[in-house]
């Protein structure tokens, strides 16, 4: 079954004078999809969001959001979207509850419905203890929680989240992500940027990696890891603790791209694209040096590995005058 395309972006660009912030990006987002948009700082993520939310006009290219043309139907688009910006946004003269209430009012949510949703969101986002606190007195994490929760006071079909979990502790972060998942199951579509790649992996159906204004790759998290996350980590411990001879031999091995030791756990960590040859080598060395390997395991490649590889390769390609895609 072909899913409805909620966002269609075709060769969209944005220039600031001579600087190209976003360079001919193209992608589609289907209904009820969580589309991750990952990239280093200054890659063009926020500029893309600002264009798709009609805050910034594109320099060139076309896009439709929820079936409306980006250039001519901005108001219709804005009426159906929600946005959690990267930067703080709060009404400084209000407390948490009133701030949510007035935000609902400006979105024309009826009063009774506002009351119901405020209670529900305050419960979901665990904000009861600072419900009556002025927004200026909130901690960064509390303010962030309010900013995300507040956006759900109104109805929307598409939600843009620009690094929504910055400053949240891991427990709150997980509950926010689970809440987002629940809303996606109910039909919401999400455009999501983050620097925390575990949460992108947890939440996103597909991920676009953007670097220097251009999309380097779009795929599912699994495929990105499989295709670009070549390096794996082999972690092992020695019964004897440490061995400078072992460390020296592995550091100079051609199969090893990175070698180090975690002082906390005492484990050696070998980053390699060929664990099948590194593991026998570790045992051969241990045997020769009369050491005992007490534990050894291969950690799976992570999205972070894939992301770093993709961006690093793209940087090299740009430096050499060509690009990977």
């Amino acid at each position, binding site marked *: 079954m072909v899913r409805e395309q909620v966002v269609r972006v075709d060769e969209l660009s944005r220039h600031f004078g001579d600087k190209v912030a976003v360079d001919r990006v193209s992608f589609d987002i289907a209904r009820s999809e969580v589309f991750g948009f990952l990239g280093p700082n200054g890659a063009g993520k926020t500029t893309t969001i600002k264009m798709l939310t009609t805050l*910034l006009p594109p320099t060139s290219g076309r896009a439709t959001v929820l079936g409306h043309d980006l250039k001519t139907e901005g108001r219709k688009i*804005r009426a159906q979207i929600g946005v959690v*910006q990267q930067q703080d*946004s709060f*009404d*400084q*003269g209000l407390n948490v509850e009133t701030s949510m209430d007035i935000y609902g009012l*400006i979105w024309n949510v009826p009063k009774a419905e506002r009351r119901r949703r405020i209670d529900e969101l305050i419960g979901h986002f665990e904000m009861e203890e600072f419900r009556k606190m002025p927004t200026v007195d909130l901690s960064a994490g509390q303010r962030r929680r309010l900013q995300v929760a507040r956006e759900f006071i109104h109805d929307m079909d598409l939600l843009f989240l620009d690094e929504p979990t910055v400053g949240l502790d891991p427990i709150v972060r997980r509950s926010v992500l689970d809440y987002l998942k629940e809303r996606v199951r109910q039909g919401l579509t999400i455009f999501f940027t983050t620097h925390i790649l575990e949460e992108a992996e947890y939440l996103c159906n597909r991920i676009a990696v953007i670097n220097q204004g251009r999309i380097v790759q779009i795929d599912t998290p699994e495929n990105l890891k499989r295709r670009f996350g070549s390096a794996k980590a082999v972690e092992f411990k020695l019964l004897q603790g440490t061995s400078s001879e072992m460390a020296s031999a592995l550091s100079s091995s051609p199969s090893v791209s990175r070698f180090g030791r975690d002082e906390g756990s005492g484990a050696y960590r070998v980053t390699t694209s060929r664990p099948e040859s590194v593991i026998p080598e570790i045992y051969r060395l241990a045997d020769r040096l009369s050491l005992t390997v007490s534990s050894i395991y291969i950690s799976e490649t992570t999205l972070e590995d894939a992301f770093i590889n993709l961006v690093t390769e793209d940087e090299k390609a740009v430096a050499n005058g060509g690009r990977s895609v």
Partner: protein
Amino acid sequence: MRLVYRNIRANLDRASLFFELIFPLFFIFVQGFGLNGIVPPFDVGNGRVISYSLFLAAGAVTLTVINGGTNAGTQLWFDRKNGMFEQLLMGPFTRAQYILSIIFATLIIGVAGSLLVFGFAFPVLGASFAPTWEGALLIAGALFLGTMFFGAFAIALSVVLKSSETFQIVSTFAFFIFLFTSSVFFPASAAPSAIQAASLANPLTYTTDIFRAGLFNAVTSTVSLELGVLAIEAVAMFVIAVFAFRRIRV
């Protein structure tokens, strides 16, 4: 109107509003009475002779117009500083609606402030207050246009200036100039020639003169001309504010 309500609730500091109210009352009850003994009563037009305390009381009411203007700039600065400016523009509103909401909020605050100050000053003004329909319309027109001018002026200023601190300093200085080249404290005709010339371009002069004419039933043939000049200045400043506002980078 939803945005207007939000602007009033979210961006206005109660302590600032209190002091904006105290400021004109200080002029009415301290300076007015203090100078009343040494300034003889004089004609404000149409043969209406009033005391200096009455003259100053009427002028002080129009000070709220300037305070309302400062509020407009402050609202915009708070929204930019707190990220609400962009948040609202990504919501179901246009830029034009946003700027109009600030102007309307400013008008409500300006007019409500004037009425409050007027209410407090009524014991002083009451003796010579001669209400007529024509006068009431003139008062409403003066407060509306004056607030619109100073609101738009503060918005334009807050767009041009790069920090809220600079905005506070420059707007205070600018409003100080407007204040002392107007007829709030003394009739423009009694001022040195340079100040007289400046007062002719100063919308606060017209706001105050029209307000006094309406309040004391001292309407002369020049009032309609003053109303026309004030309307042109208010509309021109509004257009400038809209153009300046469009330049804000997000």
